[in-house]
């Protein structure tokens, strides 16, 4: 049946159509919906899980592939760093069932720390990479990836980018049938990675590179379209931008679309280069195609020549502008000229109204006023605690880093109190090792777990602490407090972050202790529980001091000029009745009702 599918949904449906049996992953924008869609649409006999991190997910998928099942692991590009260890190694060992590693890159970056390029990573790891220009191509590519993986007993990476992951196209989706039963694991020396085996397999991997480059040049996966003398080499969403940019002028161009970046299809590239006079390269992230063409001795107009922006996303208008400038051609897309608009407010993402993280950050700030602290942030909604007026994120690096960086800072300057803020899902993903590291090495930190009972930033996925699995089972939740105590953290306080009278003294007590001490701020994400009520401003009592806005920065509160002066106003659609504003209001005139 024809359906409007998002790129990530297309990957899931393509994998199910290919008979995938085991799917694991860890949430991360822009990859998350792929695994969620598998969970929603899977036929009987398909197992799916949110693993605790990408490394675990990759290992689960590798195990399944060793047993002969088709398996897939999903992640964003940052997650590939976490999963590098098993994925790098499994390429040397090989697989029995097809194993696809689905990685979503994030040009911009829009919601990531880096602009790393999985095409380059795949080349480094010597694992084939298939790229996608559109959701419908992603649907095809994932099936091709399984075929290729199984045919060559090697893992295959399917890579896409945000504008493909989160774009929708019309796709004909087949009925999914349960996967075929598989043979199971058969014992063999080949499954044990030893230096001698790696030496032998490295030779095979090396030989495979040129063999696959030839196959990819001849099997139609990479396309050369047009007969014009201006050559454009592109890949991913840049192929769509190119199509828009040259629309109506196609006869001037020959477009080489690279859908198998690694191994690079050299013979096809040679054919393309031979039929054009000029070569431009349009691609986001690394100058990957550009560098491969340059290595063939081609002069390329691209990022290295300074013609194409080296960072951030491209667009059809940017591509058209570069083509015009470099070739003298006149195309149809141009930037719009508008008179200057009135001042528009910047509108970055913020912590939601009622978000318990606001209470946690504010409570620590209030408790530690006048003392030297470092607030180490981490990856999740709570990174948004960096914004004014909370301004409570001094560092943010990668998943789990705050916990261990706090220790490094402490070893250099023991005079500050270092608070490491980490969410519940991030704690399970990569905070536990850091906590144990601190206990063992006698570090002096306050570990703050922001437990909102979900993986909020990526759209509310369950995790080990929630007691719900992606197979729909109810299981015993893993207790963060027990994990901490088991790891040797003796000082653990569980506190409601939206009750300042309780939270502030607890923080002060913890700050005065030594070693690794933990505060678990437990309060659910507002998106997964009903509203507690709505705060109402007593307009007669409000003195318009703006203390609520200046201290909390809650998006539900604005100030309005009335005939009785400036007054705070609550947006009832946004307010969840967390009660934080009334606790700090000097007149306590913002009581929660209903």
């Amino acid at each position, binding site marked *: 049946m024809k359906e409007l599918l998002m790129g990530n949904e297309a990957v899931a449906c393509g994998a199910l159509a290919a008979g995938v049996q085991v799917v694991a992953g860890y949430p991360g924008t822009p990859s998350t919906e792929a695994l969620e869609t598998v969970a929603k649409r899977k036929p009987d006999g398909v197992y799916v899980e949110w693993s605790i991190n990408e490394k675990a997910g990759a290992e689960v998928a590798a195990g399944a592939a060793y047993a002969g099942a088709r398996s897939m692991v999903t992640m964003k590009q940052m997650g590939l760093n976490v999963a590098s260890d098993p994925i790098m190694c499994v390429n040397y060992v090989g697989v029995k069932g097809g194993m696809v590693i689905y990685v979503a890159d994030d040009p911009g970056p829009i919601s990531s720390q880096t602009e790393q390029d999985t095409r380059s990573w795949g080349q480094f790891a010597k694992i084939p990479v298939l790229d996608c220009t559109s959701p419908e191509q992603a649907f095809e590519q994932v099936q091709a990836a399984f075929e290729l993986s199984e045919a060559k007993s090697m893992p295959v990476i399917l890579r896409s980018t945000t504008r493909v992951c*989160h774009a929708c196209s019309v796709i004909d989706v087949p009925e999914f049938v349960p996967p075929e039963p598989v043979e199971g694991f058969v014992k063999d020396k080949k499954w044990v990675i030893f230096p001698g085996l790696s030496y032998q397999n490295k030779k095979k991997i090396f030989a495979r590179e040129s063999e696959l480059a030839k196959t990819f040049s001849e099997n139609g996966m990479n396309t050369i379209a047009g007969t014009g003398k201006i050559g454009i080499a592109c890949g991913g969403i840049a192929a769509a931008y190119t199509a828009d*940019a040259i629309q109506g002028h196609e006869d001037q161009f020959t477009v080489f679309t690279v859908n198998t970046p690694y191994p690079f299809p050299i013979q096809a590239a040679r054919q393309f280069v031979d039929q054009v006079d000029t070569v431009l390269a349009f691609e986001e992230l690394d100058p990957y195609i550009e560098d491969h063409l340059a290595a063939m001795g081609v002069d390329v107009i691209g990022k290295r020549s300074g013609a194409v922006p080296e960072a951030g996303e491209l667009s059809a208008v940017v591509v*058209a502008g570069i083509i015009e400038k470099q070739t003298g051609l006149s195309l149809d897309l141009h930037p719009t000229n508008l*008179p200057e608009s*009135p001042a528009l407010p910047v509108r970055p993402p913020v912590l939601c109204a009622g978000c318990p993280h606001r209470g946690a950050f504010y409570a620590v700030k209030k408790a530690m006023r006048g003392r030297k602290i470092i607030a180490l942030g981490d990856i999740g909604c709570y990174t948004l605690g960096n914004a004014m007026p909370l301004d409570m994120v001094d560092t943010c690096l990668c998943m789990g880093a705050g916990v261990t960086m706090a220790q490094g800072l402490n070893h250099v300057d023991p005079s500050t109190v270092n608070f490491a803020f980490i969410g519940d899902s991030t704690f399970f993903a990569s905070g536990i090792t850091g906590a144990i590291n601190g206990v063992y090495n006698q570090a002096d930190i306050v570990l703050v777990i922001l437990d909102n009972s979900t993986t909020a930033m990526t759209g509310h996925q369950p995790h080990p602490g929630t007691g719900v699995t992606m197979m729909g089972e109810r299981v015993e939740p893993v207790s963060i407090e027990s994990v901490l105590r088991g790891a040797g953290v003796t000082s653990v306080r569980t506190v409601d972050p939206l009750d300042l009278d309780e939270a502030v003294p607890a923080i002060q007590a913890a700050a005065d202790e030594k070693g690794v001490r933990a505060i678990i701020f437990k309060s659910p994400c507002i998106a997964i529980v009903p509203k507690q009520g709505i705060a109402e401003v007593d307009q007669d009592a409000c003195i318009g001091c703006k203390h609520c806005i200046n201290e909390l920065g809650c998006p539900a509160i604005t100030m309005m000029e009335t005939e009785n002066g400036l007054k705070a106003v609550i947006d009832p659609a946004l307010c969840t009745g967390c009660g934080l504003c009334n606790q700090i209001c000097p007149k306590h005139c913002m009581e929660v009702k209903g």
Partner: protein
Amino acid sequence: MKSALLCGVGGQGTVLASRIIAQAAMNSGRQARTAETIGMAQRGGAVVSHVRIGETPEERVTSPLIPDGQADVLIGFEPGEAARNLKALKPDGIVIVNRRAIVPVTASLGKSGYDGETVLKWLEANAAHCFVVDGDRAAQACGSEKVLNVVLTGALAETGAMGLSFEGIKQAMIRRVKPAFVEMNKKALALGAKMVRR
């Protein structure tokens, strides 16, 4: 190719609106593509949804993202966001903009104000066709402020800017919303259409 750009503030439901429009195109046998802001920007940040559809079943839709100056219609769920994205609109394109300004925390904290009315005047001065509508009141009349997205979709349907019939958009809406909310959303579509009827 017909293109609609929908923009607003995370949480206002631009994604559902763009999916309804794309679904209506698909139901009539045409190609449809959308591109949406999903993730970090949902938390009260600026969001944009692109919808591009073929005018005939044969027409190919090249890319999901609307190049600047190529949108036939711009639906602004919020005045400032409409102004921010006006560059996407064709010179003879249509703007449908919801009147209520949403003041972000950054503006509440700062001394400089954000004046929605001034922004609306600028939009009216710089768009060939601009409908300023009170979508929130219409949504409240339907029983929930959450149907603002469908109210504005109704307005779009009435303009005919995407070459889709009102009935086609209604059927697509019925496919896309939970059965319990179909009646409320039918009302929202009708009220939205009424707001731009001349």
